[in-house]
């Protein structure tokens, strides 16, 4: 009886995970960071499965590994929420929508790419995507400011300038942030040692 209940709740979690990733993936236009903002809204704000700090850690991991960020993030969130099965379920949820859409489009792709209605609707949706991302950025950014750490704010600004204005490869930015973290720890340890 008890194990059946447990089994059922696991099944509910997996179903919810599948439907959430399917839904997010079907509507997420643009690169991998877009899907991370949608995942944050869904899994952190709505379902409370993951806290905000951990979501950002997972985002950093997803970004650091090779492959599509959306798929990497799905793997991590899936593992975190429901283990191995969760990973499989959320990968399938994430890749199914693009697979279906691209399969359909591959049969009449030239017409699709030049269709005026499609272009209009997509243009408007771009505005919506920009709004969604910047809304999430406002929330995340104000939490970084709340830490009242000069180092965090400096990293935020420096990373932004590096990627947006200087077009520096994301990998180098991630590596630099990792180095800063290690150095901070070393300096802290040395201070403690000399005291």
């Amino acid at each position, binding site marked *: 009886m008890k194990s059946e209940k447990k089994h059922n709740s696991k099944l509910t979690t997996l179903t919810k995970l599948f439907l959430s990733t399917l*839904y997010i993936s079907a*509507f997420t*236009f643009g*690169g*991998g*960071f877009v899907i991370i*903002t949608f995942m944050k809204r869904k899994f952190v704000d709505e379902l409370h499965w993951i806290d905000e700090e951990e979501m*950002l*850690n997972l*985002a*950093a*991991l997803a*970004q*650091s*590994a*090779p*492959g*599509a960020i*959306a798929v*990497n993030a799905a*793997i*991590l969130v899936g593992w*975190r929420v429901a283990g191995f099965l969760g*990973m499989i379920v959320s*990968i399938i949820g*994430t*890749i199914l929508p*693009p*697979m279906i*859409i*691209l399969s359909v*489009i591959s049969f009449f*792709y030239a017409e699709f790419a030049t269709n005026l209605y499609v272009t209009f609707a*997509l*243009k*408007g*949706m*771009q*505005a*919506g995507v*920009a*709004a*969604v*991302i*910047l*809304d999430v*950025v*406002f929330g995340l950014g104000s939490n970084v400011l709340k830490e009242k750490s000069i*180092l965090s*704010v400096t990293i*935020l600004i420096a990373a932004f300038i590096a*990627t947006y204005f200087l077009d520096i490869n994301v*990998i180098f930015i991630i590596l630099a942030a*990792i180095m*800063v*973290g*290690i150095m*901070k*720890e070393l300096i*802290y340890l040395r201070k403690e040692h000399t005291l």
Partner: protein
Amino acid sequence: MIYLQLLLSFMQVGLFSIGGGYAAIPLIQNQVVDTHSWLTLNEFTNLITIAEMTPGPIAVNSATFVGIRVAGFGGAVISTFGCILPSCFIVSLLAFIYYKFKGVSTIQSVLSSLRPAVVALIAAAGLSILQLVLFNDDSIMLKNINWIGAATFLTAFIILRKWKWNPILVMSLCGVFSLIINLI
């Protein structure tokens, strides 16, 4: 045989594209156009346009498209499987390390420096999309402002910030609004 070729090609794409979407494009081109001639360069350019207009990672979109053209639906499944397989192993390994050592203070320190960097990366991604929306071509000048785009963005942003509407609903409404206003 063709299945094996597709699998190996897209495994390479999955394994070596670090840094998401745009990083994968040259790798896909190398495999699909230069090495195997599965698509012409023109077809490939169309594919990238479509991939950017439709949901999903560019690598998965390309794998599906190329796979279907070369070997039908089975080809699409095999290619997609190939491009996510390396991620599954590497990401699982990273996750294992993360959960095993996340209490260690060095890892904590690294993660706390990574978080603001990730916020900055998300901000930059959002702003480059906003730039596409606000200006009619690449040059950022006042006379090039797309007022409809700007108004759509602002309205959507305020609705999201103030009333916390469902983001996917807001996005779909933006699409419908843009379609209607362009047709009038």
